[in-house]
């Protein structure tokens, strides 16, 4: 008798029959019935109506039957939560069973039943199982914590399971360690800042020991966890690498790739002149090659990863070209990936071999593969200049085959070759023109039209050719239409006499008959240009084009760095950061390589400019933390820290509002007041050219300090810059900056770093309308174009838009409110008193500043230098009360009362603002302190 018969029952009234069988007295019949139920469940039939009957079978000695019932429960408990409770008792009982396998089974299954009421009962058994004497039960319980966390995170925290889980990392059994690590890693992922997996040298040591002893899967969990650790120095990094390298010989590809991930990451910290660094590089190549003899699916994953590794460290596999040659029976996905890597590894030394192979591939059957092979030939031409001629002749041979898609693909790449080597291969244009009629894909048509337009003067019948395209103008895709428009305008500028009619025709087609806004706009622009100033039109349309770069479709460096941290995972297969395909909070943290080498630095040449790009890591310290740190720096920490009094929540709300610009409406008409920032901008450009010539980053800093020093005689404060616009979001442009107030002027200092491949130019800046009417006093002046990996220092900003030749980028940044206090903020005593009384109590708010170990006089002095003026002081019951005033740039007065109690590091501030609601924020005050703290 076999079980396959269970799949075939399709009778009507089946449920009834099953119900009868489930309640049968005979054990065998019962078991048969449960099997039928499971089979129906598998194929997607709804058998939830049998819930009570199946659950009744749970109390049994037969383990096989028990497992089947559990399987049913896991599937349907959610739909019948009330009935599911019936099962709880059995679970609880099973958790006490003398047989460890049954204890584990019970705790494992219970964790899979996602019903709140059951979860409550799970806690006690789970706690016991986590401390069970049997490792099998402990390892199951460890995973169960992760399950419970998925259902009810709060409960796990409240019950203290996380601590127990952390203890399991020191368990004597390697498998328990591995599962605990896996569970903790997953929980930590949904709490990015929790520091749950508190990795320190001791735990790392434990993990490395367990690594040698646990199963292949456990090794993967541990290695993946290790990859998140950042060693303190190169020595630690090296010792971990040494203990991880033996894993490269494991038969399991996942162990190998995870080990590669750890090594790739930790290698960043090793000095390049170290012997060990070279040894490590050599050790990495063979295992990567061996991965290519695994099953095709694994090969595919390996190849996607090798693609990343080759981009980051081309030296590892540069001699291994041959292993990436395509085999006849490789699946198509492996073939395509191999092709990609071949091009990346192509160099002058191996180009002959590569070309011979590519030519072979271009005659294969699979259309995608052939296309990619043809394109690869073109890319070789662009990459290895010496081979360009041979590549072009190979492409011409392929065009002769007249295979439609081969021809089209060849034309697309030839266009790029023309752009890379202008005035060299134009002799082939005639051959290309012969194939004009066979082109039916937009990309190829557009490429051909581009060629015709670009070389119109050398093609006698260019006007006829373009005219023939024009006939079906409205049926073409936008790409072709745009290209056609441009090409005809080019043609007109080159041969104005014969083509006037043609250009008028295309302009009217583009502007009057098309509803595509891009096309229309481009049409109008050309029209205006041609009608007002033909000379200027010529300069614009026929301008010399910049050469295209050698490597195309390289992954952007910051993304590449992140993907290297995700080697082996889906992110590395998709070549996308996890946030692009994972929902919710998981995996949203951006991982980065550790940076002794600096993030933006290219691998081979550590140029001096690289140091300058060493901007703070992606972690943007929140304003609060930063300020807290600075305060501690200044003030000697005392042991007497009083209990922190509760902060009034009302105040925090106010502070939030102010920063988010919600005050716009409150402030109304006052926005017009534009604080003078002119001086800052006036000074900034003066220092800039000099700093560009400065050899290294040190020079830049010095110069900058100088500039700052002049502006601010009382000791320049240089608060650290925060990253405002990460390079990932802005096509390679990274902006970090800070606000300072110097000599009565608000300055925004920005560091722009170019982490992209191409040069950036044409910078401009603009601010959104904001509460205090900040606006740039001068245009953004960046004199030199920003070449890759270069960064510029000084510049002085909220919502900001920065534009360059690539795109417009938007970001927002906070500015400390203390910037906005003006120097003439001292109010007359009488006026103060009167105003204080006049202001309704609603306008008042209170908050506390913690851990400030200054006496009232010192505090008052410090605040004064931030333009917060003390008007009066009085002492009541050992408390000093300071009455203070300040004025904002938009003319609003703010009055405050600061209570300082000797010995209590916490200050209480009550503040009122004139005529408007409760403002002034903690931030302002704290800033006042901090500004002076340094």
């Amino acid at each position, binding site marked *: 008798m076999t079980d396959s018969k269970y799949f075939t029952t399709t009778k009507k009234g089946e449920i009834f029959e099953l119900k009868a069988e489930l309640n049968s007295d005979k054990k065998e019949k019962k078991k048969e019935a449960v099997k039928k139920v499971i089979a129906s469940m*598998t194929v997607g039939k709804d058998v939830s109506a049998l819930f009570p009957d199946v659950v009744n079978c749970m109390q049994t000695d037969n383990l096989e039957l028990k497992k089947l019932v559990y399987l049913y429960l896991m599937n349907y408990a959610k739909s019948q939560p009330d009935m599911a409770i019936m099962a709880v008792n059995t679970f609880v009982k099973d958790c006490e069973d003398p047989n460890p396998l049954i204890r584990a089974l019970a705790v494992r299954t219970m964790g899979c039943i996602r019903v709140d009421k059951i979860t409550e009962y799970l806690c006690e058994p789970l706690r016991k199982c986590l401390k069970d004497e049997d490792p099998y039960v402990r390892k199951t319980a460890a995973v169960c914590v992760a399950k419970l966390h998925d259902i009810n995170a709060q409960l796990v925290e409240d019950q203290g399971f996380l601590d127990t889980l952390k203890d399991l990392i020191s368990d004597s059994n390697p498998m328990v360690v591995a599962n605990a690590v896996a569970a903790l890693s997953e929980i930590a992922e949904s709490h990015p800042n929790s520091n749950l997996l508190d990795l320190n040298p001791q735990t790392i040591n434990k993990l490395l020991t367990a690594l040698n002893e646990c199963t292949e899967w456990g090794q993967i969990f541990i290695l993946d966890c290790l990859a998140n650790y950042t060693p303190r120095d190169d020595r630690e990094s090296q010792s971990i690498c040494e203990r991880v390298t033996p894993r490269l010989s494991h038969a399991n590809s996942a162990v190998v790739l995870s080990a590669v991930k750890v090594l790739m990451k930790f290698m960043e910290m090793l000095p390049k002149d170290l012997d060990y660094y070279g040894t490590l590089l050599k050790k990495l190549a063979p295992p990567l090659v061996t991965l290519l*003899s695994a099953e095709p699916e694994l090969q595919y994953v390996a190849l996607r990863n090798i693609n990343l590794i080759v981009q980051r460290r081309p030296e590892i596999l540069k001699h291994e070209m041959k292993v990436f040659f395509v085999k006849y029976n490789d699946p198509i996905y492996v073939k395509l990936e191999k092709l990609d890597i071949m091009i990346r590894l192509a160099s002058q030394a191996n180009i002959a071999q590569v070309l011979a192979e590519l030519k072979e591939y271009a005659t294969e059957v699979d259309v995608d593969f052939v296309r990619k092979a043809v394109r690869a030939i073109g890319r070789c031409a662009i990459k290895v200049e010496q081979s360009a001629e041979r590549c072009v002749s190979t492409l011409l041979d392929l065009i002769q085959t007249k295979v439609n898609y081969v021809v089209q693909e060849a034309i697309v790449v030839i266009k790029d070759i023309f752009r890379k080597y202008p005035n060299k291969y134009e002799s082939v244009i005639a051959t290309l023109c012969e194939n004009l009629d066979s082109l039916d894909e937009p990309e190829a048509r557009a490429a051909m039209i581009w060629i015709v337009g670009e070389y119109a003067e050398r093609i006698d019948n260019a006007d006829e050719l373009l005219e023939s395209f024009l006939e079906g103008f409205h049926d073409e895709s936008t790409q072709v239409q745009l290209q056609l428009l441009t090409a005809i305008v080019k043609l007109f500028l080159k041969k104005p006499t014969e083509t006037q009619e043609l250009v008028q025709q295309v302009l009217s087609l583009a502007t009057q008959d098309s509803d595509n806004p891009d096309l229309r706009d481009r049409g109008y622009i050309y029209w205006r240009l041609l009608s007002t100033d033909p000379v200027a039109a010529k300069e614009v349309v026929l301008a010399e084009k910049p050469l295209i770069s050698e490597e195309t479709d390289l992954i952007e460096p910051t993304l590449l760095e992140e993907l290297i941290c995700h080697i082996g995972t*889906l992110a590395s297969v998709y070549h996308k950061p996890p946030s692009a395909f994972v929902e919710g909070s998981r995996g949203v943290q951006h991982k980065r390589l550790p940076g002794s080498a600096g993030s933006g630095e290219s691998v081979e040449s550590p140029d001096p400019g690289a140091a300058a790009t060493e901007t703070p890591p992606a972690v943007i310290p929140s304003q609060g933390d930063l300020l807290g740190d600075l305060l501690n720096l200044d003030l000697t920490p005392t042991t007497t820290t009083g209990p922190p009094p509760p902060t009034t929540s009302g105040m925090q709300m106010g502070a939030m509002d102010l920063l988010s610009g919600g005050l716009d409406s409150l402030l109304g008409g006052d926005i017009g007041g534009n604080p003078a920032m002119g001086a800052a901008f006036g000074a900034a450009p003066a220092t800039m050219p000099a700093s560009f010539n400065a050899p290294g980053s040190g020079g830049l800093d010095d110069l900058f300090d100088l500039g700052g020093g002049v502006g601010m005689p009382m000791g320049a404060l240089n608060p650290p810059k925060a990253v405002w616009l990460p390079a990932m979001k802005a096509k390679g442009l990274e902006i970090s900056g800070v606000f300072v107030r110097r000599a009565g002027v608000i300055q925004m200092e920005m560091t722009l770093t170019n982490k992209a491949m191409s040069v950036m130019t044409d910078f401009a800046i603009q601010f959104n309308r904001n509460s205090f009417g900040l606006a740039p006093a001068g245009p953004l002046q960046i004199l030199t174009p920003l070449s890759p990996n270069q960064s510029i220092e000084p510049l002085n900003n909220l919502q900001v838009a920065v534009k360059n030749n690539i795109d417009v980028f938007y970001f927002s940044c906070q500015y400390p409110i203390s910037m906005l206090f003006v120097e003439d903020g001292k109010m007359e005593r009488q006026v103060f008193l009167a105003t204080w009384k006049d202001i309704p109590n609603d306008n008042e708010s209170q908050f506390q500043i913690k851990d400030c170990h200054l006496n009232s006089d010192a505090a008052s002095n410090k605040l004064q230098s931030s333009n917060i003026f003390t008007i009066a002081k009085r002492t009541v019951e050992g408390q000093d009360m300071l009455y203070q005033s300040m004025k904002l740039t938009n003319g609003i007065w703010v009055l405050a009362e600061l209570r300082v109690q000797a010995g209590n590091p916490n200050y209480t501030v009550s503040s009122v603002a004139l005529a408007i609601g409760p403002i002034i924020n903690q931030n302002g005050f704290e800033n006042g302190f901090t500004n002076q703290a340094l």
Partner: protein
Amino acid sequence: MIGGLFIYNHKGEVLISRVYRDDIGRNAVDAFRVNVIHARQQVRSPVTNIARTSFLHVKRSNIWLAAATKQNVNATMVFEFLYKMCDVMAAYFGKISEENVKNNFVLIYELLDEILDFGYPQNSETGALKTFITQQGIKSQASYLISKNQPNVVYCGTHGFLFVFLWSCFVLQHHTKEEQSQITSQVTGQIGWRREGIKYRRNELFLDVLESVNLLMSPQGQVLSAHVSGRVVMKSYLSGMPECKFGMNDKIVIDKQGKGGGSEDVAKSGKQSIAIDDCTFHQCVRLSKFDTERSISFIPPDGDYELMRYRTTKDIILPFRVIPLVREVGRTRLEVKVVIKSNFKSSLLAQKIEVRIPTPLTTSGVQLICMKGKAKYKASENAIVWKVKRMAGMKESQISAEIELLPTNDKKKWARPPISMNFEVPFAPSGLKVRYLKVFEPKLNYSDHDVIKWVRYIGRSGIYETRC
């Protein structure tokens, strides 16, 4: 981690569906069927993202195994797991076919519950699993009545399966307390692949060195590329928990020993040692020991397993040399002469030799003369296939063919694809030699000498081509 695991037949009907995570719903099962199994196109990637759910799949004959997830999982691990899962199923019930999967669906669910917990792979060594998942697999072929994979089998006789004790389906509760804790400690222990208390009347070891030799040679006899990928496959029937040590003529080891030993020894063994480019090991091998001392020591699993894989590219013994001679006589005739020379000891015999000589698409007729074996022109394959059953070392043999061509006005020349060859030889083309395989069992009293060891070398052709 893995959110759900599904098994489908070739039509896309679900045979097994096990969901581990809440984020994978029933619709995921259908999404994969519609978008991948029923897709018109051939599979373009083993990883598919459908509506933010990633599906990683492998195919065994007609059966699709797919893992679904919504997280950024370790993709390599998932694929390794799917393969492991196939191995485990195969060990329980043989070939993975629709019939076998349906017959064993209860067993598969039980296995899935054990080897994948909340999507985390757990110990999946069959040796260990069989100690507590004791359901017998149901096999479709009647000839497999007796399962060699039964846990309670006593092997006797030379090759294994003469005498078999079967304890009928053994339900867990009947294990004694010691047995239970032994099971759990094995499943979670350092040696998860072997259980304790295995006993054989006769301790035997079978070691196969299986190599595939790959070659691309120019018409002039110049080696363009050559490599050997080899595997060491073992069958061990040993009692207790034996500690094994495997030694081969690895250049690094021999050189190291040479320094300590006599100079004569160096000269002698230096020649015979081979340089291994890279090797990977079964999880039973202590990798850190290999890394530091380059010695291969392990406690073997019981039964069949692959101990290591390796790759070599230097000093490969090429068992055959193919010498092609192609002459175009006019536009309608080709004369082809191919000589094969065997290049190994004359006492050895190569088997299953096959030479495949491609012919142009315009071939109209072929006349063949060969001294040995049989040759045939296969029009459907556009090739002459020449088969020789056996051939001793240091011999040569030749075939000549006259090919008539249809006259065409196609200017394109014939691309002349390479001549390929298949064969099997009784030695290792890499030159690998097993130097020793020592067995120590400290607790039971049998010594290394009592173990009967069998070693076999087989070299096969991989892609073995000569351009003409």
